[in-house]
Every structure is written in structure tokens, then in C-alpha cells.
């Protein structure tokens, strides 16, 4: 128990602090980069229909997606209807600040707290995305020209809807955030081993 307590009370090594700096560099651009991409392919759309989800908005061929969705009675996708878009960029900014602070102060406890906060945020966001996908795919208007069975697109991977193949993947922003996220455990393992070897020395 002493070992765990002293681990969290300990100071971070220079290497770990550099790694956390790397995480801040990964986080900052992810505010401006697309987080997720959804691509629809069908024969009459040889170039595909591309939707890009950013931390603060949804962009790309949203108009055409909405046009197609009205045939099946799907609710119109409008950026201003997602409250998440209003605060996600500030959350990322907050994690960036937290990580920067951690790198400067160099305390393991702050690092752990920040990482848990960030990871929780990631999980909640993925859950929210899945919730919205369920919502849009299942809340279909009965007055639509075409009646199809409700469906839930996969938030990662391929879904078939009518003549469309819908492919959903994390984009640059999410990949950068994942890199930042993975740095947490890396730092933890490294620090655990370092402090153990110092203790035995």
C-alpha cells in the first residue's frame, strides 16, 4: 500500500514530462481537425458522400445526406441541435491545459487525475455518438415516402442501408486524441518501474 501511495505522491521523471508535452501537442490540433468521418457509397455517387464531424460542428455533404434522409423520414441533421458541439472544444482545451500543467508541476497524482478525466470524457463521447446514431436511425417519421426498418449505424465500421454502404471511421482528430490518451498508461508503467528500481536500489 505504501508503494502505491508513494507512487502517486512521487514526482515525474524528465522523460515522462516530455511524453506529456507530446500529449499536449497531440491534443491542441485535434480541436481543429475532423474527429470522425462517415462516408456513404452508392452507384450514383461515384465520389461518395462525405460527412466530417468536428469537435464543434458537422460538415461536408450534410445537405445531400439530409436530402436522402428525408426519403426515409430521418430527422434532419443540424449542427445547432447537438449541445455537445458547444462545449467539446473547451473540454479539449481544458485537457490540454491540464496536461501542460502536469508537465510543468511534474506530479504523478495530477497526471493520473487528468488522464482519468480525459478517458472518462472519451468514453462518454463515444457513448453519446452511439446514442445519436441510435436516435437518428430509429426515430423515423411514419409519414416518410419510404418505409424502412429502423437501424443503428455502427459508429465504427460498415453498415448497409438501402443502396448505400455507410463507412464510419475515426479521423485525424480522434487518432491524435487516442495517441494522447495512450500516453497516460505508458507514463504510468514507466514511472511504476522506475520508482520500483529506485526503491530496490
Amino acid at each position: 500500500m505504501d508503494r502505491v501511495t508513494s507512487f502517486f505522491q512521487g514526482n515525474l521523471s524528465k522523460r515522462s514530462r516530455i511524453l506529456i508535452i507530446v500529449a499536449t501537442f497531440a491534443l491542441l490540433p485535434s480541436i481543429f481537425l475532423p474527429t470522425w468521418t462517415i462516408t456513404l457509397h452508392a452507384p450514383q455517387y461515384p465520389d461518395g458522400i462525405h460527412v466530417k464531424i468536428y469537435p464543434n460542428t458537422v460538415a461536408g455533404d450534410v445537405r445531400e445526406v439530409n436530402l436522402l434522409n428525408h426519403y426515409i423520414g430521418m430527422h434532419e441533421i443540424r449542427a445547432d441541435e447537438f449541445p455537445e458541439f458547444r462545449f467539446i472544444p473547451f473540454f479539449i482545451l481544458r485537457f490540454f491545459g491540464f496536461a501542460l500543467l502536469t508537465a510543468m508541476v511534474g506530479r504523478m497524482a495530477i497526471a493520473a487525475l487528468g488522464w482519468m478525466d480525459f478517458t472518462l470524457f472519451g468514453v462518454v463521447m463515444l457513448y453519446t455518438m452511439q446514442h445519436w446514431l441510435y436516435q437518428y436511425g430509429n426515430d423515423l417519421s411514419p409519414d416518410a415516402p419510404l418505409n424502412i426498418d429502423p437501424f443503428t449505424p455502427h459508429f465504427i465500421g460498415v453498415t448497409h442501408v438501402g443502396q448505400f454502404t455507410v463507412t464510419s471511421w475515426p479521423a485525424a482528430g480522434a487518432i491524435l486524441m487516442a495517441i494522447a490518451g495512450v500516453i497516460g498508461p505508458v507514463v504510468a508503467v514507466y514511472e511504476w518501474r522506475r520508482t520500483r528500481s529506485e526503491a530496490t536500489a
Partner: protein
Amino acid sequence: MRSKRMTWVLTLTATAAVLGVVTLQSCSGAGRGADVSAIARARGLTEADIVAAVKTFQPTGKMDEYLMFGSGGHSGQVVVIGVPSMRLLKVIAVFTPEPWQGFGYGSDEHKALFENARMAGHDITWGDSHHPALSETDGDYDGQFLFINDKANPRIAVIDLRDFETKQIVTNPNMGTNHGGTFVTPNTEYVIEGAQYSVPLWTDYADVDRYEEDYRGLITMWKFDRDRGRIDEAASFSIVLPPYWHDLADAGKGPSFGWAFLNSFNTEMATGGVEDGNPPFEAGASRNDMDYMHIINWQKAAEVAAAGNTRMARGRRVIPLQTAIDEGLLFFVPEPKSPHGVDVTPDGRFLVVSGKLDPHVTVYSFAKIQQAIQNGDFTSTDPYGVPILDFNSVIEGQLEVGLGPLHTQYDNRGNAYTSIFLESQVTKWSLDPLAVVDKIDVHYNVGHLAAVEGDTKSPDGKYLVAMNKWSLDRFNNVGPLLPQNFQLIDISGDEMELIYDMPIGVGEPHYAQIIKADKLQPFEIYPEIGFDPSTMSTASDAVQAGEERIERRGRNVDVYMTAIRSHFNPEYIRVREGDNVTIHITSIEQVRDATHGFGIAKYNINLSIEPGESQTVSFVADAPGVFPFYCTEFCSALHLEMMGYLLVSPR
């Protein structure tokens, strides 16, 4: 030792043989088990046919390297054809109403266009389109605009190549018909239109017995305003010519920049009258061995016009013939009779004239012409006082190319190609030395030629299209009116090779120009929602989503409508009999090819509303009843449901 080596050689040979057989089999199996030579044998195709097919065939999704803009002849339209596949891509509506493009079927924008195109108090709903001209910058096609003349009703149309639509038609009331147009000056400063049959100029009526006194020829320099994409009628001017008949023209380039050349015939000023025992026009107008090539200093003429040295004829600025002579704007040089083309060489140093009734092409030197003009080296004047240069002192040479030479195009290796009408051939000949290089049969009665970028300062020398007047036995019989035949010729090698026949069944095309496709950058969709193609800007009455409404003011009903897959909004238009209805309709589509039509049953109305486009249609609801309107362009799975009702209640 020796036997060992032998074994190696044998093994290698055997391996190579096996590999060879396997390779051959996999090759012949490439076309889904098809055997090319077996198919060719079954269809009776020669090796040359297969080569031609391989040179022209475009698999699905592959684009052509060049686009040909051809006149549509009597159709009054322009045909757009891919080269080398010779696939018809579009027929651009120009002088004739065309329902698919909604051209002249109700839209106010086109009503205004046709209103400006009226002549002699008539609605003119056809054109005899002859010679398209692509806009040029520094003597090369720039892919921005296309011009074309209507011979029957002397008019010029301007087509914007951003959307391949006709933007303007200007009329020329001082001409009877035209022919020497359209040709552009090297930076499209002016679009040249030469008259064909002379008519009275300063008086509206004069009998043919007053032909020499009152009839006049004319060349018009239409000023093109590139920024506006329109001809500036007020800044344009004409030069009066003697009452000869005039044929093709061309603009000088490079050293001959600033000059225009125009062929003439009937310099005899024959007035026909076969019914009175006179020689018919065909004989009277061909009596002399020589006609006059007109050499015109348009740059100086523009200065003369700008200085106000003009008279007004039927509301247009005209430089009188005597002024043109006094100011040194007009000179003649004899040319073999009944000439068709006067074609400036790519370097601008020479002019090639072919006289239909003379087996030679005549090559004139522009430098020698300039020398003779500067030296005042004239043999005489014509009856109107126009100075005539000495033929022999200004020609570079003559070359016998065949019977009935018509029109000449160029390649990038110093060769010229001349159509030979009477012998149904194309003659390839070199400019230096003057010599025939090759001849090829075409089918039949070839008129103009179009080589890829073949009348610019830098021809590409890859393909040539022979535009044949007769097709006779080339295609399936479709009755006594036969299509024309565009024949594609590969001119990249030493010998010309005929590689494709394309029937043209819309009218008799005359000239065409062929541009490298990558020079064109048309819109994929209109750049903004509510775009008005007639002004190339956002329409003041554009309707955005959510702004749909019907406004009534007494008998005037304005309908603000949007169209998107798969509905119009509103879907009911309720009016009273006799109401003036104006429908402002905007396509709020933003994807390529999602075009809607808007047709109203029994009202002779149809619009084409392309993605982003805004159109206005106004009409009097003079017939009471219920009239479905619907999307006339198959747009989506629920296209048939894209409709509405015009409800005209009886008054």
C-alpha cells in the same frame, strides 16, 4: 561438358516455350474468354479496322482528349462531340427553341433573348448556323466563349463555356445574309462577321436594276466585352464593301495581327434573272477567272470608327466605302474564282486561298502584301475605287492539290490539309517546300475540315475531321434525307488514316473547331443557389428554402417556388382565369446532375432547372381548368411524384 551445356539450352528453350504459351493464353483470355481475331473474322474486320477501333474506342468512364464544337447547320444549334471517340455529348440550343434545355419554352430570360433576335418584325425560330469560333487569347483558344453565326438571318450568338448556354444573339439589319463569320481576332477584341449576299444599304428598298448603285457588301467588327461576356453593340462598327458577294474570312495573327481577310465572289455583280433569258447566277457569277480577296486593316478601322468617321445605317455605325478607301482600310488582291477559305497559317505569315473552280491552293505572303501596300504598288482599282494589288508580286506560290479545293487547316509540323470537294479527298501538303505529301479518300463531297486546334497559332497535329456533305452508302438507309458524315482522320503519322465515321442527323454542319478538353473549365453545378445563367449572377428573385410563398396583387400572382428531390414547394398554384402568373423557381439542389424540369401541361411551358439555377416564367392563365405541372427530368426514385397542380378557376 558440351552435352551439359546442350541440356541447359534445351531446358531453357522448353521453359520459354511453356511460358510463351501460357502468356498467349492468358492474353487472349483477358477479354472474358474472347478471341479478338475470331471476333474480327466473324465481323469481317481488317487489321486496319481493329487499329482504328483501338484508336477511337473509349471504355466507360474514360474522357476524350478533345472537344469539337460543330455547327448544327439548319438546326440552328451547336453540336459538342468528343474526339477521338466521336461521341455526341451535347447539342447546345442557340438559335432554335429547344425543350430539353428549356430554351424558348416560357422562361422570361429566353423570351428576352429571342426578343432581341427578331428580324424584319419576325420571330425567328431557326438559324442556319455555319461557323463556330472559340474565343482566343494571344492567338490560342482559351476555352471561355464560343461564337456562331446564323447565315439565313444575319445574326451572331455568344455562348458562355462556363455553362454551355447561349447568352446573347445580336442581329445585323444591314446585311441580307452573312457567311464570313464567326472569326475572332487573336485576343477576341472583335468577332468578325462578313455578309454574303449584298442588299440595299442606304435605302430599304431598291430593285436589282439598281444593284451596282444601291446594293452593298459589309463586314462587321463586333466588339466583345470579355468581362461581361457579351458583345458590345454600341462599340461595334461595320465597313461598307462593294456589292460583291462575300465568303469566308479569317483574322491575321503574329506578324499579320490587326488585319482581316475576306473572300469574295460574284465580283461580276451578276444579277441573275434566268427567267428573263439572262445567265443564271451560277453562270453570271462565275464568268471571271479571278475574284478579289479583301485585305482589311481592322485595327486602323477601329481608330477611324472611334474618331467618329462613320455614318449611321439602320441604327448601326458604318464606315462608308469611300472613307475606307481614303483611310487605307481596304485593299484587294485577285484570287482564283469562287474561293471558299482564306486561312492564315499558324505563324501568321501566309494566307492560303482555295478557289472551288481552280485546282490550286494559292499561298499569299503577308510581308509581300504589306510591301506592295506601302509602295503603292497597285495595278488598278475596282469600279468603286478600291486599290488592287498585283497578284504575281504578292503570292508565295501555287500548288495543285486537286479539283475543288475548299478549306485548309494546319498541323504542328509545317503541313496544311485542304479539303478537295469534287474529288472527295483531303490533300496533305507541305508549306515549305510547296509539295503534296499525301491524299486520302473521304466519303463524300467534303466541305470544311477541322484539325485539333488547327486554326490557332499552335495546332496540335493529332486529328482532323472531314465534314462531308454527302454520306450516300456509309450508313443504314434512313430515307431520302441522309445524315452528313463527320470522318475522323488520324494525322499524327506521315500518312493520313481514316479511323471513324460519325453520322450527323440534325442539319448540315459547316465548320467546327476542336479544343483540348483540359482548356475548358465548366461549372459542375451553378456556383450559388439562385443563380441566373442569363446574367451569370445571383437572381434578384431567387428563392431560398423556407422562403416559398404565393403573393397576389389584384390580377398579378407571383409564385416563389423551390425544387428539390422530390417535390416542388408550393404544390398548388390556385389562380383565377385571366390572372398574370409569374413563377420564380429555384433549384436548391447542390449535387451534380440532379436537374429538374418544370413543365406545365397544355400551356407550352417547360424549363430546365439545373442545380442552383433560378428561372422565371410568366404567362397569362387564359385557359381555365386543372393543369398538372411536373418534373420533366427524371430526378429520383420518387420523380413521378414530383408534381403539382395549376388550378385556374373560371372567372
